[in-house]
């Protein structure tokens, strides 16, 4: 495998973890965060700083950074899970921009605009790949658990959900914190792969990009969201040769999907043993019929 392909894949896998988090938040629960990328920044900076400044063990630093992000997520989640849709976007947006500004200003700690350098490289393609698979696996289990069901229920009808005894605020908070943990973890992997991080690139546009990926692949399907994230995060990298045209290509593709296949590439289809068996069955059935003709 060439170094270029390996590089692209590693970054794509790291993105997949964050998008799995966005799937939990937006796909399952129907909340929009325009500040999600800030949690990636928190994960990256916290784990990087713990290793660089305190010479902490890599694994421990990653775990601690995720916990720190979750703690911050709990604070910001308090208003978020109680507000209506557009207000959630606003609060998370403001939060994200504030974190960006903070990272820029606290030069003594973060290196300011020139970024945090000298982070040892501890992450390669294998770890990124295993992490992505594990993250997606956890989210898949989450989706079919009581939590996932309650998320989908309250996404459609909060009042009816409450009438069934669902503690809407608590379930939303659980989903929010899970997505924060995943995003922060992807941030930690990011900094130990790039061995460098600066405050740019964690703004609301990054968060919006993740939401677009989820919708592109299928907002009601984890498999679809993952596929969407894979395609859309690999695309700009593979289209490097096209330079400035790549974002236009990207936008046109997404607009086509939104207009002509609003449920996303895969709709609600999930990659489960049962569904695969059914699809194969349908395929062989079709072939048999053709042969009979």
């Amino acid at each position, binding site marked *: 495998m060439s170094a270029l392909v390996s590089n692209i894949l590693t970054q794509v896998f790291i993105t997949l973890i964050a998008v799995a988090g966005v799937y939990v938040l937006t796909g399952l629960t129907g909340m929009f965060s325009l500040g999600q990328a800030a949690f990636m920044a928190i994960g990256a900076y916290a784990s990087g700083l713990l290793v660089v400044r305190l010479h902490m063990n890599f694994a421990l630093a990653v775990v601690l950074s995720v916990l720190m992000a979750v703690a911050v997520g709990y604070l910001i989640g308090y208003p978020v899970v109680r507000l209506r849709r557009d207000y959630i976007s606003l609060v998370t947006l403001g939060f994200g921009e504030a974190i960006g500004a903070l990272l820029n200003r606290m030069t003594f700690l973060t290196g300011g605009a020139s970024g945090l350098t000298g982070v040892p490289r501890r992450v390669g393609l294998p770890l990124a790949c295993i992490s992505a698979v594990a993250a997606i696996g956890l989210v898949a*289990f989450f989706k079919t658990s009581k939590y996932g*069901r309650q998320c989908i229920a309250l996404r*459609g*009808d909060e009042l*009816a959900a409450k*009438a*069934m005894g*669902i503690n809407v605020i608590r379930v939303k908070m659980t989903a929010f914190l899970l997505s924060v943990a995943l995003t922060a973890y992807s941030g930690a992997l990011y900094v130990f792969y790039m061995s460098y991080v600066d405050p740019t690139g964690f703004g609301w546009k990054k968060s919006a990009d993740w939401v677009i990926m989820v919708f592109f692949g299928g907002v009601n399907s984890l498999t679809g969201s993952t596929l969407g994230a894979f395609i859309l995060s690999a695309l700009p990298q593979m289209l490097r040769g096209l330079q400035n045209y790549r974002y236009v290509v990207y936008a046109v593709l997404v607009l086509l999907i939104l207009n002509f296949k609003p449920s996303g590439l895969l709709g609600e289809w999930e990659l489960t043993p049962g569904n695969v068996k059914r699809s194969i069955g349908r395929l062989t059935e079709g072939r048999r019929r053709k042969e009979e003709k």
Partner: protein
Amino acid sequence: MALLEVKNIHKSFGGVKAIQDFSIEADAGEIHGIIGPNGAGKTTIFNTISGVYTADSGEVYLNGTQITKLEQYKITRLGMGRTFQNIRLFQGLTVQENVMCAFDPQSRYTVLGGLLPTPKRLAEEKRGKELCEKYLEIVGMKDYLKERPENLSYGMQRRIEIARALMCEPKTLLLDEPAAGLNPTEVGELTELIRRVSKQIGFAILLIEHRLELVMSISDLIHVQNFGKTIAVGTPDEVRQNQEVIEAYLGKED
């Protein structure tokens, strides 16, 4: 003390007095019908009892516990089940998952079980599925577990909603116009179903309904509402004879 006790509740929205001094006492096995013209505040009564709104004054007791100011989901967990006028099943979930949603708040596994198939999770899910099948069987919808409710008929959706409400293990069941939109055969089946669960499970049922043949045939007691006020309470026969009720429904002859 009765299973459900509502004492003199009032509720206003701005200048509109939606409920004025409503009281009810309902015990296990009883069916109470609430009737009245559109806009009489019937659904508001349900919303206030079940915690969507908080009463301006008055008290509500469920099984002896004061629930007047509790949050909606807590009231449900104490034993309040309900259905909605305009069926509100959850989109994107199968029939089974819809009913399971009412079990999930009682399901005893933690976030760890939410992320991994722990033994506790498997056991609880199994327990939930069994209960779910039990209630779907009662309403006669057991063969539709994996279907999406939106692909089923209106009458079937009503039944699923009742099964979902039963899954809350209610001590009081609020049915908001369960016969709306059903054809005569379905109304017959529904009447039979309500009677059956009332006997079999043994809880208090409050029933809002415009189909008088249904309410009159199964209610033990009928409360007639008009413009937020209770204008009559009595057995179906008493209510049928009541002059004020006839006027409220048919208008006054001058």
